[in-house]
Structure formats: C-alpha cells, structure tokens
C-alpha cells in the first residue's frame, strides 16, 4: 500500500526530472536545430565546446561567481544572524522581515530597479559616486550583477542562520558569559560550531546554484559586454535559442550538471564519513 502511495510522486519525478534529463543527455550527442530530426554525431559537440576558449572563460566566470557567493553573502548573513541573537524577539521579527523582503521581490523587478537607480550609465547613483560604468565595463560587469543578486540573497541567508541559532541551547551562551567571553568569542566558540552543519549545507547549495545562475545575468547584460558576464546557463540558452544549436546547448547543459554534481558528491561523502549526519 505504501509503495502504491509513492507512485504519483514517482511518476511526476519521472516526467519532470528523469525524462528531460535523459533527453538532454541524448540530444547532447546530436546535431539538432530544434525543428527537424536530430542527427547523431557522437562526441562532436563536446569536442567543439572543450576546444572553444569562450567556454573556458565562461566556466571561469562561474567560478568567480561561486567565490563571491560562498564568501560575501555568507559572511553578511552570519553577522546579521548573530546580531539578531542580541535583540528582542519583537525587533528580531521586524529585522528578519526586512532582510527577507528583497528576496521575495521578483528578480526582474530587482534587476531593473538596480539597473535604473544605481547602475544607470548616465544618472545611476553608484555610477555617479565612482564615476564608472559598472555594467558596461567588462572588468566590473559580473561583480556588479553579483552585488544586485546578493541584495536579496544575504538577507535570506541571515534568516536561515538565525533560525539555526534559535535552535542552540541558551545555556551555552550563559556559560560563555559567566566565563567572561566577549561577543566575538561567543560567536567563534559557541554560535559558529553549533550552526556549522547549516552553514556547510548553505555553502554547498550556494556552489550548486552558482553553477546554475541565469536570471539576473540574462536580464541585465545577457552575458555581455564581450562575454564578460557570460555564465554556463546563459551560454546554454544562447547556443540553443539564439544560435539555434540545440544539440550543442544540451552538451553545455550536461557539463553544467557535472560541475554542479561535484559539491553534491562532496556533501554526500561528508555525510557518509560522519555516519549519516554532519
């Protein structure tokens, strides 16, 4: 009976995840324009991708994006969450809501707001302060988009970490205070070790999401200027839909899955090493 109850979920997973995944892998070995019948071409797409320097520059962009997101938002989130621990529960509720607000805004709205208010090339506030066209300059475009994306993201992390901190037994803090620990020592020796599994989980998820990032980049620069903000997902989309090379697009997508699989494997390995839990 239990197995039968699982059936609808399994069918859904099969249709939504497994079938498209298998199809993507199959099409990666074909030459297909999305209209006519695909032709099997073996590893030709992969040979072309791996010998293209654009592809490797795009992978490097994903790595830069990952480095940004596994550090800046996590640090900001941790600082905010630990500070929330020191305010009243009423204030905490208000701050948590404020922190979460940018995260629930649609990406399109956030992207456009930042593009117009802060990064507009002629009258953006940040453009004016630094006298620099951040989104239109290859060296700064990717970082500027990362800042826009991070505007919503760090607040979400702060909420997640705050929820984890709430689970810590308050007695640990009492003991730390009695021992004369300062705020940094409390954070370093009590808070951080206790929420480390949550932090680690969010780090791993961040790495996965960083290799799948698409929306902000596509909305704001479409990977430009000069591919300076191109990432694997935008390259996949553009190859498939703009250059009308669906087979090659699928091949890029499969490499994206491979990159994202590395942290998943690491996570599972860590879990198995720790006997089922982190």
């Amino acid at each position: 009976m239990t197995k039968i109850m699982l059936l609808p979920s399994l069918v859904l997973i099969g249709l939504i995840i497994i079938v498209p995944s298998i199809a993507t892998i199959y099409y990666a070995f074909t030459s297909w324009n999305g209209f006519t019948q695909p032709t099997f071409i073996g590893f030709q797409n992969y040979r072309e991708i791996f010998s293209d320097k654009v592809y490797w520059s795009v992978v490097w962009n994903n790595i830069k994006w990952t480095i940004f997101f596994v550090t800046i938002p996590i640090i900001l989130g941790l600082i905010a969450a630990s500070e929330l621990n020191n305010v009243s529960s009423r204030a905490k509720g208000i701050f948590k809501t404020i922190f979460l607000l940018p995260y629930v805004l649609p990406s399109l709205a956030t992207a456009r707001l930042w593009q117009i208010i802060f990064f507009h090339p002629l009258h953006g506030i940040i453009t004016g302060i630094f006298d620099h066209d951040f989104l239109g300059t290859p060296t700064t475009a990717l970082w500027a988009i990362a800042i826009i994306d991070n505007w919503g993201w760090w607040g979400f992390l702060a909420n997640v970490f705050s929820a984890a901190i709430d689970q810590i037994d308050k007695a640990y803090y009492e003991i730390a205070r009695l021992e004369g620990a300062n705020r940094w020592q409390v954070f370093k020796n009590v808070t951080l070790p206790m929420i480390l599994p949550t932090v680690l989980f969010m780090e791993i998820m961040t790495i996965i999401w960083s290799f799948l990032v698409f929306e902000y980049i596509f909305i704001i620069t479409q990977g430009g200027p000069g591919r300076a903000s191109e990432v694997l997902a935008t390259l996949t989309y553009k190859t498939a839909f703009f250059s009308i090379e669906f087979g090659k697009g699928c091949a890029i997508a499969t490499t994206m899955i491979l990159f994202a699989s590395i942290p998943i494997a690491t996570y599972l390995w860590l879990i198995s090493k720790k006997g089922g839990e982190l």
Partner: protein
Amino acid sequence: MKRLIFVLFILMILSTFVLARDILVWLSWLEEEQKEWLLERYFPTFESETGIKVKYVEMPGDEETLRAQLIAGKGPDIVGLAGPSFAPLYIDAGFLLPLDEYAKKYHWDELLTDLYWKLGFYKGKFWMVPGEFEAMVLFYNPKIFKENGWTPPRTIREMEEVAAKMKEKGIMPFANGNVGWKPAIEWVFTAAVNHIAGPEKVYEALTGKIPWTDPSFVESVEATKKWFQEGWLGGGKFFSLDVGEVYQLLVEGKAGMAIWGTWGFGDIVHYSKSPEDWDWVPFPSKSGLPYPIFAIGVGHCDAINKNAKDPDAVAQYITFGLREPLDHLSLFAEDLKVNGTAAYTPIKGFELTEETVNKLKELGVDERMIRFLKLSTEAFEKNTYGYVTWTFWPPKSDRYIIDNLEMVWLGKMSTQEFLEGLQKVFEEEAKEGKVMYIPPRS
C-alpha cells in the same frame, strides 16, 4: 409554408456558423497606440471588406514561443517571421504551407517588386511575403547642428569630424546602446560594411565571390571599433545604454546623432515635442562611394501555418495588407503614422507621385517619412541600395556578428580573427543552402 420558413430560418442560422470564416493572428511587440489602431481601424476595415473575422491573441513575440506552438500543431494562422533568413528552419520542419497557389490566385507576383517577390522563395517554392521595408539611416538633432553651425554629414570623414566636435562639447555623438536589444550592435556593423566597404563588396561577399576577410571589411570593422573606442557610441556606454532611451536622448539634445533604422520613424514621433528636435539623413558614405546608399532590409515576413483551418482567408488577409496603399490610401496614411515605414512594403503600381505625396501630407503623414520613401525608391532605381545583416545574412552568421563584434570593440578579439570566424560560419551556412536570395547589382 410556416414549416418551410422555419426550416429556411434554421438553415440560415446554421450556415452563418458553418460558413463563417475567421483567421487567428498573434499580436506581439505592439505599443498601445499601435494595438488600438489595429483593433479599431485595420481589422474592422478588413472584416467589412471580406467578411472574414480576425481573431487575435496577445503573445510574446519571441521565436521560442512560436516554435513551441508550431511543434504542437498550433500557433497563429499567419506566421510572422523576423525575416527571410529565418524561414528555412520553419520550412524544412514542415510548419509552413507553400503559397504558390495563393500567390497566383491573388496576383502577388504582379504586386510585389522583383526583390520582394524573389525573397519569398526557398528551394523553388514561394513560402512567404516579405514586408516591413526598412533601411539604415542617420538620425540627428537639427537644433544642435544649427546652433553649432554644423551641416549633416554626407561622408564618413565628415561624420567622424562632427562626432569628435560633439564629444568635445559634452554632447553624446551617437545615441546608440544595446541594453534591451543585443542585436542593436549589428545595426552599426550593417551601416559600416555598406557605407565603407560599399554594397558592391557586400554583394560579392554574400554571393561567395570574395571572403569576409577582404581588406574593405577589415576597414569597416576597424571603423566601428574606432567609433566605440573614441567614446562616440553611446558616449562610450554602448553596453549599458538601453535602446529605449535613444529617442529621448536625441530629441532632448543630449545626443547629436544615432545610427538607426527607419523603424525609428514610428517611435521617435512619440518623444518629439517640436519639428526641430529630430530629422534624418541617409547614412554617410566613404568618399568614392555613391551617396545616398540605403542598406535595405525586411523586418518581417508573413507565412501561413500548415495547420491554418482556412488558408485562403489568411491569403486574403495578406493581400489586403499588400494592397493597402492602392485600395485604402487613408488607412495606409494612418498605418505610416502609427507604425512608421514598417507599414510599407514596396509594391508595383504604388508610385509616390506629387499627387500621392500631397495626399499623404494632407492626411498628416510626416514629411520626413515621405522623404525617405521617395529617396529609397530612387535608390532602388539607381542601384544604390545595400544589404542589412538581419535580412541577407544567414541566421548563424548574423548571430556570430552580434555575439562577437563586441569582443572586437573591447579588444578581446582582433578584427582579422573576427572576420575569419565570420567567413567560416558563413561558408558552412552557404554550403547548407542557408543563404537566401541576394538581389544582384544591376
């Protein structure tokens, strides 16, 4: 008797439903004013004349949506394609209906000019009716020019000189950017190759007689690079300036010129506050090349969905659009006012005589638009027309230009490397028969 009348009445009602004819169109990319005009003027005129009802749905204008619908055996009856070079994909996939029968029935061959007629063919069959005549021109702000004693440039050198002066005065030389429409970069490429290398060279390259690495194209691409690196295009902010802001910058005098297409005629009027705040001239040519040259193109093609339930009704709709300037001059005038030159498809029998011009003026059509129609028609006759990338370059080559020209401007790719890459992609597409009809030079 009563029974007979009753039966006849029922038959009449039934026949109304059975014989009622309708077509389904998609409305995409429309401004509110354009949509209103279609719904309140264009569709009703067509419906009252033919008895065919136009049903419509508002849909995104992207190709992905259209393709998904066509694969599913659905989609609009009238399939709007972004240009002839996109058609082979749809034709080879069997989504479209060959139109030879309707072309004969509704005399499209007698209506369309030679170029437009031939652009509709693929693999020996007629598949689409090209429309939306457009060309690259140079928009400028006459007030700025007048105040500074400048004259609109006729040569590339003059244009560059005036651009440098504008920059010195703190005026953005060219109101050009590509945010919101990445392909906007190909407008600059189109202007350069046609007006620096010249249409003869472009023709030779498109027909495979010379490679894209020819020195004339090197010079053209180098010129675009210079325009960007000098900080002339978008004031050096080409990659962060939104295409939607261009008209505002131009009419307000914050920018002096714009490398733009004639589709802008229909848009800029919405921003303009006085006749002095915008005008256009043919895009300047390199010394030694003819002037004016118009790099012409097709912004849209009408084809018929293979699954259209009443293809003949769709063919009538297309015919109505083609014959608009001949049969409904006032409707055509409104069309020009609302949609700019996108409303115009060159057809035989419609000549811009003094009488027609006066009538169009009386009907409120902007003189600047009429001037373009006259000059571009003359360019056809004098053989001084060029070729825009999005109509005459096959799709992958076109996309290659959009994706890689910016790398040249930013110094990440050399001009030679860029053109060698273009040659490689173009050769592959030419081998596959993806290069559409290229109108000859004589």
